């Protein structure tokens, strides 16, 4: 079953157009193709690997151990294997880096929800940078759209409540006026919106991605330690060690993990050949993936792709241990909150307002 069809069978909270999810996926896909040229449209990633290389590679990959437990020589070998395979498969010189985590850094992220306009440029940039599957579409960032204001307080409900005043006699005492109705629309959000233009007057936007929890429930749940916290506080996955059990996906309160239900399709033209072993290298079917704060970039001192892509500068990124960093300045001077604090996961992802 295609992702589009699956999506179309889901109904979102406050949903009034069932096909929105469907539309969204196609829309962003079209955009990519437009940008990448006409030729892209016709091409489906055709595996161009000769069978002998593929076999040698897959045997080697099958028996390799967890990346963190490999010796340097083993790592080199594993990486060479991958580079060779990706280069042949995608028809372009691909590098798989193993840039180590820089010392004395704890990465943090701050997002200005007053500024976000819901354009989802970050989503597009992320998909492109991180080699996410285009079909079935996998996206690491969700931009939730919420209705501004509150339309449930109405005069006619003023005297309503429970118990109903004429069911068992009218005692004139009500335990709640509007209380039997949901108050406001808080918590009701959707991420398949498809407006003509953003920002919409009546909406606010709330992007969610992996919060890189300091106490990550996903890491706790993984039976084989395929997912773990790197020395910079980024939660990463060894795609070659993941057994696809999805325990981590259940555990994550931010719904940040994406599973490769089928063979990921990544057209050659769209593939970003500059990859990192723990970051944006192409994934295989049956493994988990998620945002890594663009580990391949930030370990080299660059910004994550979403930070660069945001047209309104709503996204800030930096070293939480450095008081001079942008993100620390935000924490010190703005109105800051974290999402779902009740889960006690201590996210390194902050929301703020001016």
């Amino acid at each position, binding site marked *: 079953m295609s992702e589009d069809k699956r999506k179309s069978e889901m109904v979102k909270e406050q949903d009034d157009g069932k096909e929105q999810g469907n539309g969204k996926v196609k829309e962003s896909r079209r955009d990519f193709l437009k940008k990448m040229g006409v030729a892209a449209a016709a091409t489906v990633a055709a595996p161009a690997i000769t069978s002998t290389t593929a076999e040698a590679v897959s045997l080697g990959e099958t028996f390799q151990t967890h990346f963190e437990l490999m010796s340097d020589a083993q790592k080199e070998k594993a990486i060479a294997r991958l580079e060779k395979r990706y280069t042949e498969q995608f028809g372009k010189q691909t590098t798989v880096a193993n840039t180590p985590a820089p010392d004395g850094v704890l990465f943090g992220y701050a997002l200005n929800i007053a500024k976000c306009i819901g354009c989802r440029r970050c989503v597009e940039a992320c998909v492109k940078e991180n080699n996410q599957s285009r079909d079935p579409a996998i996206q690491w960032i969700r931009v939730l759209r919420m209705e501004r204001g509150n339309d449930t307080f109405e005069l006619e409900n003023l005297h309503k409540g429970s118990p109903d005043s004429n069911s068992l006699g009218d005692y004139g005492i009500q335990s709640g006026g509007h209380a039997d109705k949901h108050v406001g629309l808080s918590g009701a959000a959707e991420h398949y919106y498809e407006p003509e233009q953003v920002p919409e007057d009546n909406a606010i936007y709330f992007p969610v991605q992996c919060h890189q929890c300091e106490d990550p*429930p996903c890491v706790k749940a993984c039976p084989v*330690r395929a997912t773990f916290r790197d020395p910079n506080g980024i939660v990463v996955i060894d795609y070659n*060690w993941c057994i*696809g059990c999805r*325990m981590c996906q259940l*555990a994550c*309160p931010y719904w940040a993990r994406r599973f490769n*239900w089928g063979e990921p399709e990544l057209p050659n033209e769209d593939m970003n050949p500059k990859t990192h072993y723990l970051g944006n290298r192409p994934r295989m079917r049956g493994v988990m993936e998620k945002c890594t704060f663009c580990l391949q970039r930030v370990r080299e001192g660059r910004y994550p792709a979403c930070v660069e892509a945001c047209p309104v500068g709503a996204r800030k990124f930096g070293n939480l241990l450095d008081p001079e960093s942008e993100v620390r300045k935000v924490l010190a001077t703005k109105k800051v909150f974290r999402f779902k604090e009740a*889960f006690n996961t201590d996210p390194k992802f902050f929301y703020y307002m001016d």
Partner: protein
Amino acid sequence: MTMKKQIASASEKPIAFARDFFSYAIKGGNLYYGWLLFLSFFVLVGLYTAFVQMTTGLIVTGATDQIVWELFISNFIFTAHIAAAAVLVVIPAYIYKRKDMKDLAVLGEIIALTFVTIGLNFIMFHMGRPERSWHTFPGLGIFNFPNSMLTYDIIVLNVYLGINALAVSYLLYMRYIGKPMNTKLYTPLIYVAVAWGPLIHIVTAFILSSNAAISMWHTAVLPFAFLSMAGASGSALIIIFFLLIRKFSKMDIADSVIDFFSQVMAWSLGIIILVFAAEFFNELYPATHHAASLEYMMHGHHGLDAYVPWFWATMALIVIPFFLLLNSKIRKSYNSLLPAVSFVVFMIILIEKPAVLVFPAFSPTPLGEYAVYHPTAIEIFNVLFIWAVGFITLTLLTKGAIGVLTGEVRDSNTVETSGGAK
């Protein structure tokens, strides 16, 4: 006898045992072959659908990032029910020393053994990359011990499988060669198995309730619900199983045994009702966000009401059998109502797993999305494949075991000492 000969005969005997056991197991009447043929049909179809899933990925199931667990894992939870309930046969036999159940204990262990195997198969199908399961083998892979609940489950399931396999084959083999068992070895094994049965189930419940992000499961009643469901569905299966054995084999099973299980089934249903009531009250009275999944099941959400009939049917079919079973006439109707009620209880708890426990729990998702699960044909045939393999195993093992227990399968050199069990 020379030393050499002795060794030779010692290694020959287990082979002879296996040969006699299985050649007896595959013999039977037309009905027996019909049953095996019926199951083989699903195996044949399943070989194809399993191939499709293993080569295409889990996308051929109905699972999505919204509804993460498919039919496989819901069925796995159910098999854990039955496997745990098998100790209900062992406990009366070995701890209460009931004479009428002494010989039946081994059948209980066969049930445990088969259902753990079925459950492990379901887990294999559930995994995105089953060929990497070696990552969970101690020594080869790495365990996330003591953090991951799945790690515990892998350990307890395999140990339970091992214990039962050992106990069953040891007992049957000793019967076969006509020697008394070494109770110093056997009794402790049985006691460990008895303790281990509920344990596999409690750990399975913890796998679910450890996920704070899925609020419907994040409740302390889950292990109690599971154990009471094990009592009900396990007893239901055992009743049907024993009634069939009694009808079709020489094995003698007293009415008192069936009565015991129908009582266990009745009171397990009673406890399930209480557990549900407690949970529903706990959710619905404060009616916080935690109640969202339950409300979704009870009333639907914005027109999404696929689970509503399942929910109410399940609740009704758990309550009605409870009241029926309070009636001793129904409990004693061994050839009509009792098996029918047992069948309903077995099926309803099987259906409750995906339709009430698993699929609706994922809505709303942590980001507030509602979704409905649609199992695909490939997924359904894979589930039937696993069940068919499981029932074939159960049938063959039981048939062979009955042969040994009734003395029809036995070592030709054995000197009759006890006059046989006939």
